[in-house]
């Protein structure tokens, strides 16, 4: 196949993955402010979209390897060409859409890594996977991220409820807007650059860009617009799960959970121990559910989410591997893989229409509903 057409297909799929990444992760920042009525759903996703757009332009650090070190790339390892990147992206997109359909907040980065791992195994065998990196960067952080955020969120919730009285807690809604905005900005700086890295490496692999060069401006702009458009489109199913499915969130809890999410993400980004934003945000919501007296956590939903985290890499890997098998057949196979991707995307979209969820399905409490003061009995 003409390298130009192949790279164009990779870029199109990478941007679509970026779009799915955007709507998949809107919930991380905006689920709790929407659930407490701190901000209207459409305003929340618009704010998140703008901050993701700004964040994507601010980020200058582009992934040096497309798989985050999970696949032994480069000299002495597997050479991941545009064909394998294409197959990996198909795996990531299909799994991201399946988890969206199920309303599961799973990590988009893990879906991307899983898709690429599956494609690389078909392309070069199991020896290409660095097991040590898989355990230290994926499996153990997947346990530590929700635990850390959960403990931080639990204590923050206890503090919020110990210090304030019931009638004062509506004020936390204003604070939620700021903490949620910080999560959105951090998300834009982190996640858009992964797609920039994938497109840049595909351009380098195909010989359209010099080795060692950074992303072109048009790549940065396209990725920023794609993730912002995805964020604006919602991802209402996951917002519903995060905001209402795990536990009923009050404004004080929402503020505590968002503060815990922000603090954990910023600390992990800047102190060299990367944790998944999605897993941190989910852990915070669970922690705040345990932290409020009288609240309950729906452990069945939390268990489904944890199961989703566990199977994200193998499931995306299986789809990526199937796509890599097709791609290895040559031009016909590449066309077949792309047709499979389009059919899968269309099928999942049509299936989602059977139980349509959008911002109108999200029940928002009326102002003051959580903090209505008790009526005092009139003295006789």
């Amino acid at each position: 196949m003409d390298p130009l057409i192949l790279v164009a297909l990779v870029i199109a799929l990478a941007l679509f993955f970026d779009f799915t990444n955007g709507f998949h992760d809107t919930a991380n920042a905006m689920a709790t402010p929407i659930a407490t009525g701190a901000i209207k759903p459409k305003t929340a996703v618009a704010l998140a979209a703008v901050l993701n757009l700004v964040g994507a332009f601010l980020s200058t650090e582009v992934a040096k390897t497309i798989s985050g070190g999970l696949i032994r790339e480069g000299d002495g390892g597997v050479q991941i060409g545009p064909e394998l990147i294409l197959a990996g992206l198909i795996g990531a997109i299909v799994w991201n859409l399946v988890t969206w359909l199920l309303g599961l907040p799973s990590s988009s980065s893990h879906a991307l890594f899983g898709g690429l791992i599956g494609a690389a195994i078909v392309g070069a065998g199991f020896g290409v996977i660095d097991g040590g990196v898989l355990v230290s960067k994926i499996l153990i952080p997947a346990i530590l991220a929700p635990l850390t955020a959960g403990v931080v969120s639990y204590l923050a919730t206890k503090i919020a409820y110990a210090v304030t009285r019931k009638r004062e807690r509506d004020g936390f809604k204003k604070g939620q807007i700021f903490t949620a905005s910080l999560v959105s900005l951090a998300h834009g700086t982190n996640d858009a650059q992964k797609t920039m890295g994938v497109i840049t490496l595909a351009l380098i692999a195909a010989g359209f860009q010099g080795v060692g060069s950074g992303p072109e401006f048009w790549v940065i702009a396209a990725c920023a617009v794609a993730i912002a458009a995805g964020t604006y489109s919602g991802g209402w199913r996951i917002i519903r799960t995060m905001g209402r499915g795990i536990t009923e969130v009050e404004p004080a809890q929402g503020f505590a959970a968002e503060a815990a999410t922000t603090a954990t993400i910023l600390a992990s980004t800047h102190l060299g121990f990367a944790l998944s934003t999605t897993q941190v945000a989910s852990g915070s919501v669970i922690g705040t559910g345990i932290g409020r007296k009288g609240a309950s956590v729906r452990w069945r939903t939390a268990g489904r989410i944890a199961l989703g985290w566990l199977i994200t890499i193998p499931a995306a890997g299986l789809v990526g591997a199937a796509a890599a098998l097709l791609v290895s057949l040559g031009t016909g196979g590449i066309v077949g893989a792309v047709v499979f991707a389009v059919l899968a995307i269309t099928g999942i979209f049509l299936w989602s229409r059977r139980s349509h969820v959008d911002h109108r399905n999200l029940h928002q409490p009326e102002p003051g509903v959580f903090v209505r003061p008790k009526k005092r009995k009139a003295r006789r």
Partner: protein
Amino acid sequence: MIDWMAFLTVFVSALVSACIAVALFSLGLRLGDGEATWRRPVSVSMFVLCGAVVLFGIYLIVGDHLLTLFTR
């Protein structure tokens, strides 16, 4: 394989910063609710301190990038 010291640093930093931010905001709300004249300025200063923590968070996210832009 796992840098446990880095993880412990992340855990303690996240715990301390989140609890400080929540405590400051909560105190701001609590102190703003009352008749005494001293409460309002103290409440405002709690919100300002909480705002400073948020600004530090923004600095952590975009500070390096802005420094790169301005020192080019």
